[in-house]
């Protein structure tokens, strides 16, 4: 297939212009991935600082509690908006949507460039927000009145708002680009019901972004005018209501968690199918399970607000609606297992990470069912149980899908094969680390330990110490990842065009490794053989 690519067409600009002015989906994808790694170092450092502070009861080294709150906030924002989203959506989305649907590039290449640079600017603004005027210590939920001008004077919160505005604008542009590309530019024969599940996931994610981000943008603007121009949308003394913010934030915030996990579903589906050497089990069920998760995800937001004083009927509704999501989620888990069932599986690093993902996601999923119940949530809300829950089901699951996708596609992106044993070692270190890190937090939370605190009653010391050790082990896993990356990029072990064998049936494996600057210049035809 590599004869399709014409190298003489490759008049790519060189030097910094190649990157700064890039309209190439692969280069932009690479820039997103690099940005994600840079942000991961910042956000990861913040989390290690927090865990080191929480290693023992009492204040260790963060003498200003506001700084702890700033770390919590910065860590949450950076991980969500600048690590997970850029890697899964901007990075893998840009790289592999065109490759997998058989088109040369995204629909709007220049808009793609704008999307990236907006995120880069947003990251800078957000980091600045952490350092000026005492920083923003509001938590990633930015609840007023704590985030209002009375309690966070200074410009930190305003910088944070602007950062999110830019990141949001970038996401909306990216979503338009993805939707247009996927709907209009698929190779002939690739009907909706024959798209790879990764493409399904990215399409749904783009729709969620398009519908959820504007709500966040509106809320942020209202907060900005409350803070600076004397409006009182969220200020009770001006006739406003702090609870309005919570509704707006979580109307965005709950879909946001699916924005992070749907792409992960897509990646895991591709990898599980490839390594089992089997087509995905229950393909349509998988696609429509994701669709229904996306749709129902818009009507469950107030399960984050069970303690704010709703009337009981509202809480009953949100409890029942939230529980509904467990059904399509179960379908996904069992379909992955059924895909593996009867397979001939090679447990290379991407597959290890995928199995790790399934385990973590199930553990976080069942605690999610617990938390869905407004009655029981009285015992759990805002405790470390919730921190454990969302890191399992979302944060670390998403991280595992990023690692999985990286190992899976590194050969395609770089043309080099990563050292397998080092990859597996990196997996095991990380897997042990994150479980040591987050499992004990269930216990601390059940015993009553609140989240977002710099210091805790001495009785919680035991589990917190274990958790902190887990964080250090996870950090070693993170460092090992960069070692793998360095070793791979500097090695001379070439990756084959299709390094995973007969199971890898999607179109990106039909082009060379590394994927040439321009691909699919001749549109592949994927119409089914007449025999079928």
């Amino acid at each position, binding site marked *: 297939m590599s004869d399709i690519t014409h190298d003489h067409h490759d008049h790519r600009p060189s030097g910094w212009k190649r990157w700064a002015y890039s309209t190439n989906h692969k280069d932009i994808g690479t820039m997103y991935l690099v940005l994600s790694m840079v942000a991961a170092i910042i956000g990861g450092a913040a989390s290690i600082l927090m865990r080191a502070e929480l290693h023992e009861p009492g204040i260790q080294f963060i003498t200003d509690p506001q700084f702890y709150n700033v770390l919590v906030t910065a860590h949450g924002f950076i991980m969500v908006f600048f690590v997970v989203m850029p890697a899964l959506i901007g990075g893998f989305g840009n790289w592999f949507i065109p490759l997998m649907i058989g088109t040369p590039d995204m629909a709007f290449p220049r808009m793609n460039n704008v999307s990236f640079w907006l995120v880069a600017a947003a990251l800078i603004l957000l980091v600045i927000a952490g350092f000026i005027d005492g920083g923003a210590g509001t938590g990633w939920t930015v609840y007023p009145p704590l985030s209002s001008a009375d309690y966070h004077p200074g410009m930190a919160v305003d910088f944070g708002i602007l950062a999110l505005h830019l990141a949001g604008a970038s996401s909306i542009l990216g979503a338009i680009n993805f939707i247009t590309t996927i709907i209009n530019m698929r190779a002939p024969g690739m009907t909706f019901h024959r798209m790879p599940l990764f493409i399904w996931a990215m399409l749904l994610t783009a729709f969620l972004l398009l519908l959820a981000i504007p709500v966040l943008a509106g809320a942020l603007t209202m907060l900005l005018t409350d803070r600076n121009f004397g409006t009182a949308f969220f200020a009770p003394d001006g006739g406003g209501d702090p609870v309005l913010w919570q509704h707006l934030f979580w109307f965005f915030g709950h879909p946001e968690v699916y924005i992070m996990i749907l792409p992960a579903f897509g990646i895991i589906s591709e990898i599980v199918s490839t390594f089992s050497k089997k087509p995905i089990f229950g393909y349509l069920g998988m696609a429509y399970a994701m669709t229904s998760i996306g749709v129902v995800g818009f009507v469950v937001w107030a399960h984050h607000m069970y303690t704010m004083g709703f009337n009981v009927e509202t809480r009953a509704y949100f*409890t029942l609606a939230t529980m509904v999501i467990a*059904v399509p989620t*179960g379908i996904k888990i069992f379909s992955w297992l059924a895909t593996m069932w009867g397979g001939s*599986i090679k447990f290379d690093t991407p597959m290890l990470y995928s199995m790790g993902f399934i385990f973590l996601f199930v553990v976080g999923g069942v605690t999610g069912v617990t938390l869905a119940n407004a009655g029981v949530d009285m*015992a759990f809300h805002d405790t470390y149980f919730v921190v454990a829950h969302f890191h399992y089901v979302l944060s670390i699951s998403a991280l595992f899908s990023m690692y999985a996708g990286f190992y899976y596609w590194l050969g395609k992106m770089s043309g080099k094969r990563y050292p397998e044993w080092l990859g597996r070692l990196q997996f095991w270190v990380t897997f042990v680390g994150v479980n040591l890190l987050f499992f004990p937090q269930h216990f601390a939370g059940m015993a009553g330990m609140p989240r977002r605190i710099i210091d805790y009653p001495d*009785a919680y010391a035991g589990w917190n110490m274990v958790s902190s050790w887990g964080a250090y082990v996870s950090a070693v896993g993170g460092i090992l990842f960069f070692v793998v990356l360095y070793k791979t990029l500097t090695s001379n072990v070439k990756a084959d065009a299709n390094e995973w064998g007969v199971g890898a049936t999607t179109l990106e494996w039909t082009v060379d490794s590394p994927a040439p600057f321009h691909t699919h210049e001749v549109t592949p035809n994927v119409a089914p053989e007449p025999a079928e």
Partner: protein
Amino acid sequence: MKKNSNLLSKIYQKFSSLVSLSVASICLLWTQVSHAAEPTPWQWYFQSPATPVMEQIIEFHNLMFFVEVGIVLLVLGLMVYIVVKFNSKANPEPTKTTHNTALEVLWTVIPIVILIVFAVPSMKLLFFMEKAQNPEMTLKVTGNQWYWSYQYPDNGNFEFDSNIIPDEDIKPGQRRLLEVDNQVVLPVNTEIKVLLTARDVMHNWAVPAFGIKMDTIPGRINETWVKVTKIGTYYGQCSELCGVAHSRMPIAVKVVSKEDFKKWLKKAKSEFASSDDNEVLKLAQFKKSK
């Protein structure tokens, strides 16, 4: 056919008795081990309940807990089986199965059934927690940066503040970060309506042993209720990020007999000026500081 269903029901009975037995023994274990209404080192389960609400929360949670542990173990077991049986060495030829309607229906329907089994007690619990039946008195809780104020509207309307005892003043035997100067005092076995609000930012009044966790929001008054069935002192912490000293605004509730409560009221009324005077005082201070 008959025989079959008999066998099934026997297995079911065995299983359910096993589950309830283990639930019961674990319940026993933790109520006996930790009678304290405060966290204990290496504690991994709930604090022992002191209200009917918390008892029901725990009971309902146990139902879910066992099913959920079962689900995790099932998935883990299947994964181990897959690793052993379907690795490329053990199984060089993959099957081509991509559909099994019966299986797909099953793993859709069984979760639905489980969720319905959860939803019924969940709704019962929720509606039970909602409102006191016959509240005999009212406690008003106000969150402030960074202390709590308590007010007894139908017992003379006096109000007092409850501040953390700083680390350096903690005496041996006292609990760091949980102990306050003025504990809020409540009578045992009394249905108490709790009204909650805040003066500055949001806080959250939470006492794990009571199964209470309610946001205090400026401009709003929230309502919940509590009926403590055991005399003792109960500890909790603010559970909504409220700024710099969020980790330093504990809640300590002293639950006493009804007689002791009456005695305490008398003392407290004279000790803490009525809240009306307080307001005047506060206004004066406010004006002065302006």
